[in-house]
């Protein structure tokens, strides 16, 4: 069998690992921006599909199908993001006689439409009240009926984009047209709905595997540490669920997926507050945070995806799922650690933590890798697992401070701050966690000051050699006329 991986970055390396277990030949594609990317080296064969922006490369169904045909691939794995939950792509693959590693088009048509999914699920599980709205007037009426605060969502939305909270009529008037425009630009659909906004909930999801006949659950993941509705830290098991609540949430997830006749790996997402949970959406793909479930269950989720898609079916039963210990994942992004503004640039050094025991790193980076500005900012996933939660936190803290990535700022300082926060340590956190976080490093200002003193000397040294970057130290970031140089600021630290 030959598989085309229609994605980029770390998930490609991850899928390649499972392919080698099953004797599947992994092939792939790369855009013009990714032609020197490290992940391409893992592939048996790879095609340049051109383009820079995702819409000209990884989102192009025609390019993916023709790449699969050119390379003689029997299957396409879409990874996450890009075409992963696209019902049309799943259908195109089917028509071309290519196996799509993911759910059937019928399932994707329901799960890809948040409103429709809610309607289907509302018969069997608690959901937050929602109403489709097409005019501002309808939105105002719906909000009045549901009661403020409400949240305005794009029916076709995802990835935390296109969400707006409204606490009053004025808010609705302010954001309605913007939301519609934005939904059109981002998701090519202007369908919106209004939902009751739950303040400070926890976000808990259940991992499901199904082959159309059998549906099993692999436990939950707690994903409440988020910024702008995008996850940053995930852990399993959730520190808040009792045995009885876990049974309730996993049973509900199984019932939902049975109703959808779900086939492949998927996740049922819930909001959880005051011991009540509400169905939010089904993510019909492998998720970024799947490794923590793999570490506690010992089950290779991508191997199961490939088994299900190729017709072998699920090779495990519910009884085989016996989660052990605790796992945490920190998503390391190329972002400013406080503002979370993404950075594109070149990695000057990349040294993962050398203590490999109970540490897993999913990445496709190495020294000299560049992070293109066209795709998302995730550069590595650091996963730690131990017998107990407290040990897993300690291993994670140690690994984070030993992880050397330079050349670009990363979210590592954010993770160190989060893991030292009492709320995280006690497991008492919700989706507002990041907003109320204080940076952890206040005590070591002496070290930073001492380093600062050493930096200008370096600059002076470079000035003698006529390096034009040298004098930008003293200029403000925003008033620097050579702003592009800003992105490669630390270059001179490595050049001398």
């Amino acid at each position, binding site marked *: 069998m030959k598989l085309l991986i229609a994605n980029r970055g770390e998930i490609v390396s991850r899928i390649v690992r499972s392919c080698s277990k099953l004797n599947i030949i992994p092939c792939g594609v790369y855009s013009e921006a990714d032609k020197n990317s490290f992940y391409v080296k893992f592939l048996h064969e790879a095609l340049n599909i051109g383009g820079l922006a995702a819409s000209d490369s990884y989102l192009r169904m025609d390019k993916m199908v023709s790449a699969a045909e050119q390379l003689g691939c029997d299957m396409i794995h879409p990874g996450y993001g890009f075409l992963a939950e696209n019902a049309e792509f799943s259908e195109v693959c089917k028509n071309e006689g290519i196996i799509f590693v993911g759910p059937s088009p019928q399932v994707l048509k329901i799960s890809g439409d948040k409103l429709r999914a809610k309607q289907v699920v509302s018969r069997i599980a608690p959901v937050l009240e929602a109403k489709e709205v097409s005019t501002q007037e309808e939105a105002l009426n719906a909000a009045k009926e549901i009661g403020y605060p409400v949240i305005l969502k794009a029916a076709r939305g995802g*990835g935390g*984009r296109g969400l707006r909270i409204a606490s009053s009529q004025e808010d609705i008037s302010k954001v309605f047209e913007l939301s519609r*425009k*934005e939904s059109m*630009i*981002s998701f090519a659909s202007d369908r919106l709905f209004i939902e009751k906004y739950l303040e400070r909930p926890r976000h808990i999801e259940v991992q499901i595997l199904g082959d159309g006949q059998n549906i099993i659950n692999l436990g939950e993941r707690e994903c409440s540490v988020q910024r*702008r509705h*995008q996850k940053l830290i995930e852990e399993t098991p959730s520190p808040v669920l009792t045995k009885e609540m876990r049974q309730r949430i996993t049973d509900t997830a199984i019932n939902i997926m049975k109703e959808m006749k779900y086939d492949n790996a998927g996740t049922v997402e819930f909001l959880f507050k005051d011991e009540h949970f509400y169905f939010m959406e089904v993510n019909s793909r492998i998720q970024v945070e799947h490794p923590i479930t793999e570490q506690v269950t010992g089950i290779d989720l991508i191997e199961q995806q490939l088994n299900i898609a190729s017709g072998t079916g699920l090779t495990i039963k519910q009884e085989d799922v016996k989660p052990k210990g605790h796992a945490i994942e920190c998503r390391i992004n190329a972002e*400013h*650690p*406080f*503002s979370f503004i*993404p950075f*594109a640039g070149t990695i000057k050094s990349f040294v993962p933590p050398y203590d490999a025991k109970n540490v897993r790193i999913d990445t496709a980076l190495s020294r000299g890798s560049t992070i293109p*500005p*066209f*795709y*998302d*900012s995730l550069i590595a996933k650091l996963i730690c697992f131990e017998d107990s939660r407290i040990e897993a936190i300690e291993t994670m803290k140690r690994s*984070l*401070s*030993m992880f*050397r990535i*330079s050349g670009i*700022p*990363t979210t*590592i*300082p954010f993770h*160190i701050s989060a893991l030292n926060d009492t709320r995280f340590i006690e497991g008492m956190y919700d989706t507002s966690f990041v907003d109320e976080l204080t*940076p*952890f490093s*206040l005590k*070591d*200002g*002496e*070290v*930073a*000051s*001492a*380093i*600062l*003193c*050493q*930096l200008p*000397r*370096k600059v002076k040294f470079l000035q003698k050699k006529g390096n034009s970057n040298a004098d*930008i130290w003293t*200029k*403000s*970031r*925003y*008033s*620097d006329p050579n*702003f592009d140089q*800003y*992105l490669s*600021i*630390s270059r001179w*630290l490595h050049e*001398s």
Partner: protein
Amino acid sequence: MRVKVNGNDYDIKIIGQNVIVNGKQITAKLDEDQITIEGKKFYLDYAEDSDPSLMIVNGMAYIISKSSDLTVSMKELRAPISGRIMEVLVKAGDDIKKGQQILVLEAMKMQNHIYSPATARISELRVKEGQTVKTGEILATFQ
């Protein structure tokens, strides 16, 4: 020299290889991206050239300001990264406060809220919703 690190004041003097921070002598030597302070090794992961600037040492972040207060006069706002303007929340002539949200810039699959670096009046807004911008492009100018 006085600097502010994460909001706390530090008084720094440099005498030869030695640095005196708040009266305490520290022996520090920077070699490539490693610095040895009092025999303990620290790694400089990242350092900005701005003021205030971000420095990452051993995975921990420091915001350092060399000016006595954190207000730096800003004449313009530039795009921190290439992307698409999703929303503009102010208009020319508006009086804005430091830290007030000015626009939303979508880049790398994220909606980045761009805040004002200064308290000022907007003299010109150079971007519209839906427009794409390049890193460093001027988005707005201040009076």
